[in-house]
């Protein structure tokens, strides 16, 4: 894995992660995001429907919370998760937890962490964790970590313990890794912990950077755990400590406004779970990221939809991750009942090319499964296109314009009433 940065603009990094996969045949542009899955399947989508999406990222994320309970099956299968799941040629990244689900806390010990699958809690030691990696056979995985510091009022002592434990887990993982033929050529991402305590964050970053890891995961900063200002500050402090030539993945953050702020704080990669959360609440992403010269009109139209979602909360209370955001429209709303426009005018996704808001509204009110399928197609397409626009903006010095587009100008949007 090799990160080639082409530009760094005020902390934001533009580049390409090259040499991915066992053969080194894949690459991933940064800032970028991974393909989010449930057990290797993009939620609601079969391969037929997934393949209607153009330019999907080359890296697919799977989680041990989905996989751990099937360890025995995978061991018997022997050929790794990618083949087991019938995945096409993709880079496989294995993480511990599902970024769209909150795990209960209080189950972590010095030697173990727990993941929650459909059958309940599964406790992992480093030995079990590494045995799982050997059966999954990913291209990258994150090392085992104690990430239970995201709750408010976690004590300094608990945060320090989480940093220590996570480093100890990493050392143990690396030891097993280096002695495992099956994991030859597989990359390890080190986990940066430290809760909301700056010194612990810096200590975690510095210590992890000393180890032979391919990249870093920033843990415990997810949406809902702390304000964006603090997240930005901690993230920037951490990335300053990390080597420039290795990728940084921020876990649990997916809202477009938070993504933009964190990219400026030096983050390269995000998990792609946000479109799934939007889909589950029956909403469609509709924010504009069009930075072409004559995009003004389209932006105004989109803002009409967004007015219904309320203003962007920039300094308000912490948002519940399940709460509707400023970036989406609620298709269950009665005003879409007779609306025969596509979800987003000009969107090239399968849903927008074939279906209308009125149909999606109907599918949602009748609880039809196709609603999830079509929304997931649109939301995934829209979200990945946003990352494309972000890279384009960085390449052409238009980040400020993009931010204005994405964040809107609260108070100045034309209200149509």
């Amino acid at each position, binding site marked *: 894995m090799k990160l080639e940065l082409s530009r760094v603009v005020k902390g934001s990094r533009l580049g390409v992660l090259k040499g991915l996969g066992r053969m080194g045949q894949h690459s991933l542009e940064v800032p970028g995001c991974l393909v989010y899955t*449930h*057990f*290797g*399947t*993009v*939620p*609601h*989508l*079969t*391969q*037929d*429907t997934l393949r*209607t999406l153009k330019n999907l990222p080359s890296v697919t994320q799977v989680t041990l919370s*989905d996989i751990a*309970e*099937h360890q*025995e*099956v995978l061991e*018997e*299968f022997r050929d790794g998760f990618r083949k*087991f*799941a*019938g995945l096409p040629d993709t880079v496989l990244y294995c993480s511990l937890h599902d970024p769209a689900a909150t795990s209960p806390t209080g189950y972590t010990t010095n030697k173990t962490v727990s993941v929650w*699958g*459909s*059958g309940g809690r599964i406790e992992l030691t480093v030995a079990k964790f590494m045995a799982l990696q050997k059966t999954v056979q990913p291209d990258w995985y994150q090392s085992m970590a104690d990430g239970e510091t995201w709750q408010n009022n976690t004590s300094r002592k608990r945060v320090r313990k989480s940093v220590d434990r996570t480093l100890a887990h990493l050392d143990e993982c690396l030891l097993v890794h280096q002695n495992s033929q099956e994991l030859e050529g597989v990359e390890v991402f080190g986990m940066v912990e430290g809760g909301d305590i700056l010194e612990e964050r810096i200590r975690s970053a510095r210590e992890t950077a000393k180890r032979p890891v391919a990249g870093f995961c920033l843990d415990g900063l997810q949406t809902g755990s702390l304000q964006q200002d603090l997240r930005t500050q901690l993230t920037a402090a951490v990335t300053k400590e990390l080597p420039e030539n290795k990728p940084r993945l921020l876990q649990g953050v997916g809202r477009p406004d938070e993504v933009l702020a964190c990219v400026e704080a030096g983050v390269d990669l995000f998990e792609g779970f946000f479109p799934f959360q939007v889909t589950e609440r029956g909403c469609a992403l509709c924010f504009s990221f069009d930075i072409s010269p004559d995009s003004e009109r389209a932006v105004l139209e989109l803002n009409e939809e967004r007015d219904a979602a309320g203003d962007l909360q920039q300094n308000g209370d912490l948002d519940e991750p399940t709460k509707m955001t400023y970036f989406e429209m609620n298709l269950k709303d009665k005003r879409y*009942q*007779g609306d*025969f426009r596509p979800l987003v005018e000009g969107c090239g996704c*399968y849903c927008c090319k*074939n*279906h*209308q808001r*009125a*149909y999606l*509204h*109907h*599918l949602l*009110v*009748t609880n*039809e*499964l*196709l609603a*999830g*399928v*079509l929304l997931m197609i649109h939301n995934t397409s829209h979200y990945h296109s946003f990352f494309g626009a972000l890279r384009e903006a960085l390449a052409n010095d238009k980040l400020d314009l993009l931010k204005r587009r994405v964040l809107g100008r609260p108070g100045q949007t034309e209200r149509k009433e």
Partner: protein
Amino acid sequence: MSLKKALKAASPLTLRIVAECQVTKARACDLILPHCSVSTPVFMPVGTQGTLKGITVDQLEGLGCQICLGNTYHLGMRPGSDLIEKASGLHGFMNWKRNLLTDSGGFQMVSLVELSEVTEDGVKFRSPYDGKEILLSPEKSISIQNSLGSDIMMQLDDVVSSTVTGPRVEEAMHRSIRWLDRCIAANKNPDKQNLFAIIQGGLNAELRKACLDEMTQRNVPGFAIGGLSGGEEKDDFWRMVTLSTDYLPREKPRYLMGVGYAVDLVVCVALGCDMFDCVFPTRTARFGSALVPWGSLQVKHKQYAKDFQPIDPDCQCPTCKRHSRAYLHALFKSDTAAMHHITIHNIAYQLSLMHSVRQSILEGRFPEFIQMFMKRMFPSRDQYPSWAVDALASVNVKLE
């Protein structure tokens, strides 16, 4: 121009009989409808609310489906016929480019809605959404179906459970005939939409015969056999089917309503039916039941957790080409896409079964096909259901 020709030109349906089995009453036809030609015998998947359970229209088209169903009762309630009409009909609303058949709404009314009351005017019921009293009359049913713009509409019939006996069955049969006439008169688009009559008469041969006599005198483009597949004895079921096909005109399509189990399909094709529909293949899929030539396979059962074969190694559907039983078994615990995979497989199974049936009719080997089909479906001869043995014997196929 003769009267017969003029009538034929008026109805937007042409049935070309391509081959007839020399042994049984089976036939293979090309049914030409406004949106495309349908190869019969045909199984029609059911898309109740204007969507086929998690499957996109492109996927459905990719599976080779040429006609599917929508439900008038559900769609008339939500989103309502006005809205669908504005969306250029159900085809436009769901963006389905091929044929649609809509039912009359009467069956759902009687089976789903409590407090429904049947009078000569129609079916009176209370809306489950706003509590208002609504009358579904033959005129109203056709008016909704005209708005939906389906290629085939069904008459409103007086539905009685197939297990009911006595005067109510006779009353329902006569009323269905009167309602057929009202439906024919109410159809605003006879040049674009075909209206099918529904033969009633319960399990009483004389009533069925009387209904057939009356209805076949009406100028309708096709006939359905109704009032069956509702829990009656299979012995009664097949006798009513074969009686109906005996009296239905050869040159018009015959649609057996609510039939979709593989064995029933094969037997009823032998008895002369062309079209079938049933929610079973798609409903059962969502519970993890995959249809296979030897019956069904319960993907969620533990025994498949480490089974790395496809559902059916001979199946060419997208699910079987990519995924194993073990993966689908595990996926059922993580994501709804598992249901979609089985739904796709089951539709593919139904369509491919009917395709094989048709091929065998075209090639003059349908009786042999039946023998092979039964051998594969049942572990031994003594497990063949006796009704199927009798029904097939009645059309000269003696199961080995």
